[in-house]
């Protein structure tokens, strides 16, 4: 029988958190603690050029002067930055071909549904796999090379395309931007790099899979994506981590550069370990994601956030060029004791710039879910337009949903629309479904999926199915 959606669901929920396994792969982990020597050590382990070490050291010097801002509507204990190891890499030498990849690592990839074999070849997705801090393997290199597309680990990019990295690194998210961006800039270990040349329409989805394996390590990866003039790329990002009782820190930085006439579609399914049902363990996900749009270009962020104990993340667009477009589509689910403070910033600088924000929050259990969004129209941004819709769905009596919209307009030609709704999942809707023979659990799935449809529709097909099932699992047993 063919593999059905139900099979997928069963597979996904095999364990409470399917991705909670750890892989038995020998790693090299540097001792816990953070100081300038650690920063130097990371840089030297990666044989980095002097300019990159300088970048790190500058960021680190700045980070030391900063205090962590606590304006987000989330609470978590003080993080001891000296109790984290900042670098972990699988011990085996980096393999040249797929055949030489550590079998244990291959097994991990299989469990995660990433196999770099023909199956993926058929689905046409190029994958970069970041295990703990190190990028392991990037598939489809040859095919991408023909088109001049560069898709590789960050370290490889530093080695092979230093001019591009140097030109763009830190231009969208400066190392001084915020506490966690500064930390990331100092200690980032690897990540993904992508460059699409002028006029090229990338023929396949590019995908990065992030995985934290080692205990007591932080993951600090860096993604830099440049779409040159008139190019197009769709980029997917997935994240998982083992279930552990301790909280682990994930502080990534993603920078997107969309040059004149280019379009970047960036999709994330974030499923970091959320902690158990009593709120023990889970990932602290403090991520800075931002893109810059030049003339006539477009950046579209789509995110489905079901994981992490605490999420703090605002994928944003700087609409610098005239006629540029920024979009943000988000579904954020929190259950049990999860906390999420997420949203976007749309900074309108250019003329005729347009932005759309669709945010769907779902809170269940004792969780707290906040939307925080900034729409800023600068004084030269004539005829800027924004449409914002942010909806909250409550599944229980003990959860919280909050909306913090900020709107700053300095040009009178701006048109801004903001719609917001809060609703509790309806007894009437559930009974109506029951009366048609649909169980309450299935009814919730139907209603929630219907509620998120506008966002799920924006995801590439295979991601959308996975996201839908993740929603179901995250909300299992949340009503009644």
């Amino acid at each position, binding site marked *: 029988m063919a593999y059905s959606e139900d099979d997928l669901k069963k597979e996904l929920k095999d364990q409470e958190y399917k991705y909670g396994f750890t892989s038995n792969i020998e790693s090299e982990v540097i001792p816990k603690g953070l100081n300038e020597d650690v920063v130097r050590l990371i840089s030297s382990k990666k044989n980095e050029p002097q300019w990159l070490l300088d970048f790190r050291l500058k960021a680190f010097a700045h980070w030391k002067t900063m205090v962590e801002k606590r304006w987000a509507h989330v609470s978590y204990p003080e993080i001891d930055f000296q109790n984290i190891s900042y670098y972990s890499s699988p011990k085996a030498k980096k393999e040249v071909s797929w055949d030489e990849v550590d079998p244990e690592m291959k097994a991990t990839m299989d469990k995660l549904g990433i196999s770099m074999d023909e199956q993926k070849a058929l689905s046409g997705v190029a994958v970069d796999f970041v295990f703990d801090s190190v990028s392991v393997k990037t598939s489809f290199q040859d095919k991408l090379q023909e088109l001049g597309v560069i898709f590789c680990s960050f370290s490889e990019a530093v080695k092979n395309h230093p001019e591009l990295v140097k030109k763009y690194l830190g231009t969208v998210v400066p190392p001084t931007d915020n506490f966690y961006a500064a930390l990331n800039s100092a200690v980032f270990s690897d990540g993904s790099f992508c460059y699409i040349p002028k006029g090229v329409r990338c023929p396949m989805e590019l995908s990065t899979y992030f995985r934290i394996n080692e205990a007591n390590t932080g993951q600090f990866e860096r993604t830099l994506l440049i779409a040159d003039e008139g190019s197009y790329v769709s980029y997917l990002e997935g994240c998982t981590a083992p279930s552990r009782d301790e909280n682990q820190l994930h502080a990534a930085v993603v920078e997107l550069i969309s040059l004149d006439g280019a379009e970047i579609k960036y999709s994330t399914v974030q499923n970091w370990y959320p902690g158990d049902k009593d709120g023990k363990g889970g990932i602290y996900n403090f991520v800075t994601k931002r893109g810059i749009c030049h003339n006539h270009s477009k950046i579209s962020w789509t995110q489905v956030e079901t994981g992490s104990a605490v999420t703090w993340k605002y994928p944003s667009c700087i609409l610098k060029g005239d006629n540029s477009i920024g979009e943000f589509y988000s579904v954020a689910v929190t259950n049990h004791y999860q906390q999420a403070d997420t949203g976007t910033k749309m900074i309108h600088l250019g003329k005729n710039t347009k932005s759309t924000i669709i945010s769907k929050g779902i809170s269940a259990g004792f969780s707290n879910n906040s939307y925080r969004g900034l729409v800023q129209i600068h004084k030269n941004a004539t005829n800027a337009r924004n449409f914002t819709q942010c909806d909250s769905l409550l599944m229980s009596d003990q959860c919280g949903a909050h909306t913090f919209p900020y709107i700053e307009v300095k040009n009178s030609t701006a048109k801004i629309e903001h719609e917001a709704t809060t609703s509790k999942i309806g007894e009437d809707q559930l009974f*109506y479904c029951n*009366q048609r023979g649909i169980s309450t659990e*299935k009814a919730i799935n*139907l*209603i929630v999926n219907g509620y998120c449809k506008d966002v799920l529709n924006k995801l590439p097909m295979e991601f959308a199915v996975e996201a839908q099932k993740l929603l179901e699992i995250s909300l299992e047993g949340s009503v009644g």
Partner: protein
Amino acid sequence: MIKIKNLHANIDGKEILKGINLEVKAGEVHAIMGPNGSGKSTLSSVLAGREEFEVTEGSVEFDGKDLLDLAPEDRAREGLFLAFQYPIEIPGVSNINFLKTAINEKRAYLNQEPVSAKEFLGMVKEKSALVELDAKLANRSVNEGFSGGEKKRNEIFQMAMLTPKLAILDETDSGLDIDALRIVANGVNKLKSPNNATIVITHYQRLLDYIIPDFVHVLYDGKIVKSGSKDLALELEEKGYDWIKNESPL
């Protein structure tokens, strides 16, 4: 098909049904009429299993099973269908997806294979024609943005798709113009068979011109106070509910 014996039910401590007795056999159409507040909609809600109502006394046997013992979704899967007086909107969920889920839940309950895409689409085509439901509505979100008449037709469409043993139509005629009323009634009549039964709950005799009942019952103050043939409906129309109130021993 269904045997209701001495059924009493409360909501918020207030007794609404005060001892209902009714038996409906396969192949029959029963009409339940009565003034506002007599307990008509409560009866349908209690049979469908709405939680707000508390059954304090009596029993309901449905096709040999204790209906009151079953969860609402299992009552539906056993073949009880309620056409809602006010159908509920479910934004973002297409009618098709909704019905496919419902049918497959029922099939799983009855240990049957899920419906195939081909078979399902065939059913949609056939059954939507039955109630003259625009094919476009089948793809729209459940009841969202439907007119009053479309919602009611959609209820009958769902009924046709789910092929219940017992259908309860709760004030399906309310808010319908004469054309929509005829379409809905036609749909119901076409679905009638010797193996299923229908309970029509209504205020007015008008619907009964189209759906001819075998029996008419008058519900008043939580009890069935009068039963008869379809002529009873005509008599009621002529004399009004005051006639019953005056005759009633209360």
